[in-house]
């Protein structure tokens, strides 16, 4: 399994003017890992598919917003 978000610790200088964000993150969505889509993958129902923006759960990549990952990894 792969993670949909990666973290790194940027260099912090004593001369940085803003309080440092110790951990930064970026997204790595499922399309980077799946390759050519295999047939007969499990599907959402039509309503769920619309709500998730995709028919296949394997491609669903939630996005929390507001830099939440940085907060939780402090």
């Amino acid at each position: 399994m792969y993670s949909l978000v990666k973290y790194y610790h940027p260099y912090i200088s004593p001369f940085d003017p803003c309080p440092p964000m110790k951990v930064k993150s970026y997204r790595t969505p499922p399309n980077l890992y799946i390759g050519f889509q295999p047939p007969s993958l499990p599907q959402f129902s039509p309503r769920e598919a619309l709500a998730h923006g995709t028919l296949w759960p394997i491609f669903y990549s939630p996005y929390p917003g507001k830099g939440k990952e940085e907060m939780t990894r402090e």
Partner: protein
Amino acid sequence: MNKTMPPEYYSMLEEIQAVDFVLVELTLYLDTHPTDKEAIQQYNYYARQSKKLKKEFEKQFGPLLQYQSYSGYPWTWDDTPWPWQV
């Protein structure tokens, strides 16, 4: 003069949006997987579902598809609301 759309307008529309979304997803999938029989069967099934749902919707709320839907009298295509107004 203002009309408010009843709750059925929204619920029926959302049902259509859900089925049509499956058709969009299967279309893009089949564009790169043209020999997946199971997906083609599923596509045809939902295409039929979509037609059925739209027929019901149009009976109550007027035409959905330009040049394809039937009109009542007077001409109903240009009746409000437009999609961005609802």
